[in-house]
């Protein structure tokens, strides 16, 4: 097991950090008031798309994708360092910068996509010309995806979709959706272009993250041609487990990057904020919050590198991924909570980035599979339950 950061990975992390300093931070300053008072509005999404275009040009987009389609060919461990760098920058307009799930290219389309799908969907994704979304969750199907009611019925040359999805990240802005629907004998994944008749994107669902990224989508007799079925009909969940579950490693390393930023912010605040004649960091109460945060960050990081390393070795990492996602996302929640405490009143104010981190950390225990579902998986893989 070797977690030494190879030169090429540390070099690209340095280049990305510089890119963020030069391209993203000035934008955050320019749009500070909008960012702080309204969050990532549709207008700021466009600004983030500008960052994405520059990232494509600079060769940072899709670093985790295979090289034969223009990706960087970085493994999961390499991507952990990259994501930590991005999340650890504390810059929010980086959200589209790396082309991570669900926005950008993914392994499922790479491994299963037909020639047509590669040309029309995957290559434009990696070139940053299109973005996408993954439409799985429904009103009656959250943790329990067997409840998916969106149906696809066979029709001449294709399928007719009817149903409703919700909380779909990037639905308001995407060029096409990857839709999970019930078909005879199982579930199937369809690529549905945004302008397909009968595909309707609902209004933005405002959230605690203030990022204006989610909306409902509806399918009303929406015709999708056969050529837009991903892989074979009926295998949707097998594919999702195989190709999309590593998203949880990505969520974990993002949580770790955020926690790293928060710990540094806490230390600085503890050293520079004076009360009762001393820096507040002179108090053991504050020191212990920092110490506990550092310890938990170290633990999460170690878990994440180990999981990513095993994933790169081709090992089965289902239990490791579940444990890491669970621990890293709960860890960042605790760290963000302590950071707010160390910052006091300021930590509660919108002008302080800690406040925003606190809100953003909260969703990480829900999206990508809730903490309870991770525990359930860990227990099942240990041979308990059904």
């Amino acid at each position, binding site marked *: 097991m070797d977690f030494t950061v190879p030169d090429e990975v540390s*070099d690209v992390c340095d280049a990305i950090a510089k*890119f963020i300093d030069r391209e993203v931070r000035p934008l955050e300053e320019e749009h500070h008031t909008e960012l702080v008072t309204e969050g990532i509005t549709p207008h700021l999404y466009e600004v983030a798309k500008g960052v994405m275009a520059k990232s494509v040009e600079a060769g940072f987009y899709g670093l985790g994708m295979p090289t034969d389609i223009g990706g960087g060919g970085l493994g999961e461990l390499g991507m952990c360092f990259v994501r930590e760098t991005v999340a650890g920058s504390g810059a929010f307009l980086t959200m589209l910068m790396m082309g991570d799930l669900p926005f950008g290219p993914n392994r499922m389309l790479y491994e299963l996509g037909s020639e047509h799908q590669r040309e029309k969907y995957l290559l434009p994704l990696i070139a940053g010309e299109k973005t996408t979304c993954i439409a799985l969750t429904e009103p009656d199907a959250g943790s329990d995806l067997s409840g998916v009611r969106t149906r696809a019925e066979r029709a001449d040359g294709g399928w007719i979709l009817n149903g409703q999805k919700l909380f779909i990240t990037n639905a308001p802005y995407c060029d096409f959706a990857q839709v999970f629907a019930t078909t005879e004998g199982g579930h199937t994944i369809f690529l549905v272009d945004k302008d397909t008749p009968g595909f309707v994107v609902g209004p933005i669902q405002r959230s605690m993250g203030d990022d204006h990224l989610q909306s409902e989508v509806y399918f009303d007799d929406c015709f999708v041609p056969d050529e837009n079925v991903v892989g074979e009909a009926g295998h949707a969940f097998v594919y999702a487990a195989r190709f999309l579950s590593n998203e949880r490693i990505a969520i974990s390393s993002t949580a770790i990057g955020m926690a790293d930023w928060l710990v540094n912010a806490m230390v600085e605040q503890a050293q520079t904020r004076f009360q009762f004649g001393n820096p507040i960091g002179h108090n053991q109460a504050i020191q212990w919050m920092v110490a506990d945060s550092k310890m938990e960050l170290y633990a999460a990081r170690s878990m994440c590198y180990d999981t990513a390393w095993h994933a790169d070795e081709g090992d089965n990492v289902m239990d490791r991924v579940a444990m890491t996602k669970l621990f890293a996302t709960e860890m960042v929640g605790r760290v963000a909570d302590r950071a707010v405490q160390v910052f006091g009143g300021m930590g509660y104010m919108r002008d302080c980035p800690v406040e925003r981190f606190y809100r953003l950390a909260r969703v990480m225990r829900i999206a990508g599979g809730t903490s309870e579902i991770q525990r359930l998986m860990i227990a099942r893989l240990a041979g308990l339950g059904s």
Partner: protein
Amino acid sequence: MNIVVLVKQIPDPAGPQELNADHTLKREGKLILDESDSYGVEIALQLRESAGGGDVTLVSMAPNGETSGLRTALAMGADDAILVGDDALPGAAALTTAKVLAGAIGRKQYDLVIGAVESSDGYVGVVPAMIAELLGLPSLTFAKKIDIDGSVIRIERQTEAGYDEVEGALPALVSVTAGVVEPRYPSFKGIMAAKKKPLEQVTVADLGVSVPGFNGNEEVTSVEDAPARAAGEKIEDDGTAFERIVAFLDEQKVL
């Protein structure tokens, strides 16, 4: 069009800095590409592109066989690099540095040598002109724009008032001012490609340069902290503040 770019690898300016007992900067650990030199690298790459070919060679002098900064510039697109490392070199004075770099440049066929006006850690600002003298090249300094037309080089030479147009014959040496172009980012593909690019490591003896007593001609006698900024003068506006501000500016001879 073959271009040699002088690049210095320096301790990260964002990190804490320490001085040696002889008041020179500690250069242990990772050294990064001096931002001042990233502009020269970018200009060289652009000139190579518009010339439709040629090589961009990096020349650097650094301790401990350090190559991190060179790798950055190779990843940006330079073709090869020469690194001069020698146990005798740390703390080398400007003239020694110029002699060593001139010796390394002499190993290449070149049309143009590009350097920064000054490095971000030393700020001595004389090395490019010394190298031009040692190599017998015309020295065009403070360039903010470079045009090549056959064997003629034209630059816009930045001045306090604007710029002068200066012309010279190739081969020549140009020093470029910071911030005049947007240096490209080293992409991941560039970083991977850089691993395979030639990087020649040589010593002073290999260059056949004679540098009698590396620091014989320069010594730093002491280093002091910059004086703390004195408090400014506050002018309360009673309706006549502008007059006092104008008077103040006039006194400072900035009007």
